[in-house]
């Protein structure tokens, strides 16, 4: 990371505020320091507390200046029209994920005429639960009430699952349980389960209880996943310091080899294996850059016979 010019600190102190100068080591430029300072102040204004606001701003700025991600400092990250809660130990939702989730929601609600009788979605490595929550919100608003929604999120981390449940509790578009229940065919549910996707019992016992069986596999419309995909060398060099030091490694990289593929691709092998058994109608996986995307596409080729002829792997490349 290049050294910041001392004049930049002076400029921040003079033009914006001494607090902005304190944010500079984390923000790296004046504009984002000014923006983040404004957001911290707005956050303090919007959340009442007995601690004097000036002191709270100062505390938050100090924490952010030390490199803690702003989302952990403020405790939230906007995701679509939701404010997803963030806590240390759970990966912060990224704008790229937000973009493709919104796109996915539009595709799901517009592509089918007439609207389907039910939609079932499985999100693996769900983290904060942002993807299934945003899908639930968007589809709940855009699909006619006759369409049932059956959404499940799975993560290995207990911290992630409890946060995902807290987020679901906070952003529940569905009527409260006290109101008369809908008929079973029109229900819209979202549930989170804590388990490893490598668990041998996942395919044999958990998933068949979540989704009804169909002729070929399980009745699943969409399998979506944002698995850990950073390689060991990229983790050391290409990740931002705030990510490396403050976000959970569990959600970013997988260090052990598994069979024939690279450590960073292990999750895709397992995801495709799951897809081969469940035979979902669509698969969406986030990958870290073009090279990995190509490797995953080749991997889909190997699995295509198992997936049932046409390898319809929807790779979502982002990054470089």
């Amino acid at each position: 990371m290049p050294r910041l010019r001392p004049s930049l600190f002076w400029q921040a102190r003079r033009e914006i505020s001494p607090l902005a100068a304190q944010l500079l080591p984390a923000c790296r430029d004046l504009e984002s320091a000014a923006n983040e300072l404004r957001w911290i102040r707005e956050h303090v204004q919007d959340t009442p507390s007995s601690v004097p606001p000036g002191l709270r701003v100062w505390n938050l700025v100090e924490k952010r200046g030390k490199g803690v991600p702003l989302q952990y400092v403020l405790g939230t990250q906007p995701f679509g029209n939701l404010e997803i809660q963030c806590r240390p130990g759970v990966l912060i939702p990224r704008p790229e994920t937000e973009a493709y989730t919104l796109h996915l929601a539009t595709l799901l609600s517009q592509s089918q005429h007439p609207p389907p009788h039910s939609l079932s979605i499985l999100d693996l490595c769900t983290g904060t639960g942002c993807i299934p929550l945003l899908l639930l919100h968007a589809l709940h608003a855009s699909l006619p009430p006759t369409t049932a929604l059956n959404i499940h999120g799975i993560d290995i981390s207990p911290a992630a699952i409890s946060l995902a449940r807290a987020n679901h509790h906070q952003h529940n578009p569905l009527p409260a349980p006290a109101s008369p229940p809908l008929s079973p065919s029109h229900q819209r549910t979202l549930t989170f389960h804590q388990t490893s996707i490598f668990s041998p019992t996942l395919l044999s016992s958990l998933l068949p209880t979540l989704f009804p069986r169909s002729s070929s596999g399980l009745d699943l419309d969409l399998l979506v996943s944002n698995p850990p995909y950073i390689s060991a060398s990229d983790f050391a060099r290409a990740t931002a310091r705030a990510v490396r030091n403050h976000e959970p490694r569990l959600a970013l990289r997988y260090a052990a080899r598994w069979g024939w593929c690279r450590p960073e691709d292990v999750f895709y092998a397992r995801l495709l294996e799951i897809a081969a058994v469940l035979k979902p109608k669509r698969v969406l996986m986030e990958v870290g850059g073009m090279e990995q995307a190509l490797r995953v596409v080749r991997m889909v080729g190997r699995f295509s016979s198992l997936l049932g002829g046409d390898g319809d792997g929807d790779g979502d490349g982002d990054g470089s």
Partner: protein
Amino acid sequence: MGVPELCAIPEARRYRLTACLQLQFPFILVLTFGPETTSPIKLPPALLERARKLTVEHDQLTTALQSDFDAKKAKRAGEISRIADALKQFEKAKSALSELQGLLESDDAEMRELARDDLEATNTQLADSSHNLSVALTPKHPFADMPCLLEIRPGPGGTEGRFFADTVFHMYKAYCANKGYRTRVVQYESSDSDGQTGSEGEIALQEAVLEVQEPGAYGLFRGEAGMHRVQRVPATEKSGRTHTSAVAVWVLPSFPENPTSESESDWDNPESDFYIDPTEVRSETMRARGAGGQHVNKTESAIRLTHIPTGTTVAIQESRSQQRNREYAWRLLRSRIAQQRREAREEVSRQLRSSVLANSQITRGDKIRTYQYQQDRCTDHRSGLDAHNLPDVLKGGETLGKVMESVQAWLVNKDIQALIADEEAAAAPKKESK
């Protein structure tokens, strides 16, 4: 002797010679200042003809509505009812006047005396009603019922202009707060070039956008668009010289949050000024190059939209939420494009009108108002109103309200003149063809 004095009065200030009394002194002039709101307007026959036609239509509609109700007809009847009312009053005043003139020629001296007494009152009544009629005939501005966006940017002139831009921003914000209008700050950006603050703690403003969410705010604020000039001794000035700088204010119609079925505000309707083809807009998220996704977690929520055919660019980084920034950016872009389209249309119709009116057309470049700190005065150059108590103006108090009202009265008068010119221009070729 009196004439040179008259010439010394600034042009912008309109005056009327009410009486000229010749006593022992050669001249005593009594001058009335202020906008001529009740000056008798000669209604051209074309305009009267139109009013009569509309009144006939109104009467037909009312009789039709009595037998069976139709929402569309009722709306149209409501729109033209004030024209019909105004025309009735006008004709009443006119018949009263002709009656009086008949009495003036009568043989009875007492009768003539009475008629003369009434004549003046009837004359003012006629002037009032003809004014009312022309106001009623003036079409309402198509955006008048909408909320608006006030865009404030400093003109050339360095830091002083930027400080004053901040003052203007707070003036409008306070005015809305005093009036109870809901506002929202869409954009409030300070400039990076210096760190000083003005004498009253203003920051050096680069650009500010204030949304006034009150329906009809566009009608209230549309007179505020233009260059606002300030003359004062800046806080940064050491030797006490007065500086003149300028601040530009744009007033754009804002797309209301809950769209109604009105065609003007329906942005999905290609007929509307607010319609933008999404394929003509380039959307960019302003983020650094390099690895993304899980590799970084920068809070980059800024959005830039470019309307390719016109090159209009909008950049918003106010909120942490990219989606919200995108919504604001789209709304701002829609408003700017709608305003440009409207200005282009007005330009076309302006060219059709007489050159007299062309000078008073508001464009962005015109200096419309001066805030003079030393003389504690705020002058509007269009209505000619001089308001004292500048601090109250800058606090957005009642004085600012008065200034804005005077501009509205001026705008209405201007619209009437434009209407008359249009009607005459439309009538002229017809006569020639006959």
